[in-house]
């Protein structure tokens, strides 16, 4: 802090700390903390609500008795006494009823238990499918990235990457929508299959469409990080390995892949996170006909079932899986956060 003040002076330092503080505490930390907190409680009927309701019933009986007493009262004084007691009972009933019906905040883990078998299966499906998307993206993209970075002359490589920026930078929704058209009942793929006597195949209704569109939508998030690290690999290293008698597989296993670790980590983390957290792809590709993606369940908890506590628990489960995946990749590939976020 003293370093900060010496460099920028007191007023500017205060402004820097203020702005960074609002961002870090107000925008990043506080919402996450509130979401975590919210996932661990629920509004419940107060403890002893059953006893309370028995007590209230008894008081109502007493009220009936008092009404009879009121009618049978011999004189004004007795009637006033009965009235006084009736008012007191009435007040007590009102107070107890408020207590009975006001839910209290109860700490619980039950929001996480709400998932049930069906939702748990969707959660697992979402994670497994996202892992599969990540694996496919890596297998498809590694040769591409290697070919562009190491086999093409630098200027041609730059042109190729510039061309790839176009499908990469175009809005995710458009990439998804293109595949909705292709895989639709009347789409070109079913038309082609029809020529050879197959189909029509319900790609969208079976959930296949989600997977296909997801691979297409996120595959370039694997190409760019891989290309960026492979571009920095000294081609002489590959030549040297070949001169020393290494075969193609050995060169990749011992020279290229170890060099590409940070790029592999970034590519896998981005692809997995985008897939597992994708709302657009399942939303557009299923039209509600196939099983939902987990993100759609999260959305529904909040905006249709309006159970925000359960919704928070669902959202947090997704966040934990994604964070876990980041640590897993960092551990497996031995890279640090600074290598990832560039």
């Amino acid at each position, binding site marked *: 802090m003293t370093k900060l003040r010496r460099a920028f002076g007191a007023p*500017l330092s205060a402004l820097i700390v203020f702005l*960074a503080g609002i961002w870090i505490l107000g925008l990043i930390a506080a919402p996450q903390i509130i979401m975590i907190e919210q996932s661990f409680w629920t509004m419940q009927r107060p403890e002893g609500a059953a006893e309370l309701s028995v007590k209230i019933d008894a008081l109502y009986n007493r009220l009936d008795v008092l009404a009879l007493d009121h009618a049978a009262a011999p004189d004004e004084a007795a009637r006033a006494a009965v009235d006084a007691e009736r008012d007191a009972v009435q007040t007590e009933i009102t107070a107890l009823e408020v207590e009975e019906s006001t839910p209290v905040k109860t700490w619980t883990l039950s929001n996480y238990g709400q998932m049930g078998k069906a939702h748990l299966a969707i959660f697992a499906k979402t994670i497994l499918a996202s892992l599969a998307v990540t694996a496919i993206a890596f297998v498809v993209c590694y040769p591409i990235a290697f070919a562009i970075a190491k086999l093409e002359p630098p200027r041609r490589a730059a042109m190729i990457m510039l061309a790839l920026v176009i499908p990469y930078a175009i809005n995710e*929704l458009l990439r998804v929508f293109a595949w909705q058209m292709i895989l639709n009942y009347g789409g070109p793929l079913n038309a082609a299959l029809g020529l050879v006597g197959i189909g029509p195949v319900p790609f969208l209704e079976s959930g296949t469409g989600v997977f296909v569109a997801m691979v297409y939508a996120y595959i370039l998030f694997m190409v760019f990080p891989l290309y960026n690290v492979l571009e920095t690999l000294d081609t002489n290293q590959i030549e040297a390995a070949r001169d020393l008698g290494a075969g193609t597989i050995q060169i990749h296993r011992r020279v290229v892949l170890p060099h590409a670790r940070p790029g592999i980590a970034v590519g896998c983390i981005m692809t997995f996170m985008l897939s597992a957290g994708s*709302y657009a792809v399942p939303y557009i590709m299923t039209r509600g006909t196939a099983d939902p993606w987990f993100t759609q369940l999260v959305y529904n908890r909040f905006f249709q079932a309006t159970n925000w506590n359960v919704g928070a628990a669902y959202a947090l489960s997704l966040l934990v899986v994604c964070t876990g995946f980041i640590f897993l990749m960092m551990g497996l590939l031995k890279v640090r956060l600074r290598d990832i*976020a560039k």
Partner: protein
Amino acid sequence: MSGQGSGLILRLYMAVFFVYMFLPLGIMVAAGFNAYSPPSVTVWQGFTLQWFGELWADQRMWSGLRNSLIIAGAVIALALPMGLAGALLLGRLGARAAGLLYTVMVSPLLTPGIILGISTVIFWRNFEVAGGLFTAILAQTTFVASYAMLMFMARLQRQDATLEEAARDLGATPLQAFRRITLPFLRPTIVTAAVIAFLQSFENYNTTMFAIGGQHTLVTEIGSRMRFGLSPVVNVIGIFFIIATITCAVVWAILKERERCAANGVSA
């Protein structure tokens, strides 16, 4: 020998990959000019510009565009100062504190977008603020500021610290030194960061969808139209997005090329 053969296979593979990347976009563009609705390329009923006219007359798209621009403007105004403050703070902290702070500041980039959106809405609900443009702005700022911070950090690392010191030795106050030395040095990055922030905000779907409540932006509106794919109007929007993307990519390439030429010119 085997190198030639495998090189050829790789080239072929790359060609297939390019067809895979561009053909779907081509199909989408083509359907935007087809007189048939819903969008299709298998039933061709002749070339038309009719859908451009329908898009022009579409009020919800215009209001979505207006909301998108409002949000993007606010996000730029918030995220750039916050990102810059974060980067400046990082440079003046001890290694341990900086490491921790850095982790927190890049964490929004490693968090699924829907979580950023929904946690913002949950937080503001406690203050009786419902989801809308305001929460969408804050949710987007959370991660756009991370991009800005990384860009400013990269630029600041290349700053010549002696310049600022010289200014101070010559009697400039810290504020003057910052305004006259550091800020001009950062100017190109401020421009780039503003462009990136605009694109990130304008194109965002996931975070916005969860944060915006009953309102809509251009992109969330496109999303809900696409679900049922009823009219080629969305294809026409797609055409505009593609044109804009290509223009940006080409301009960016030209600027880079110029920069490269300038650098070469100096060294030669």
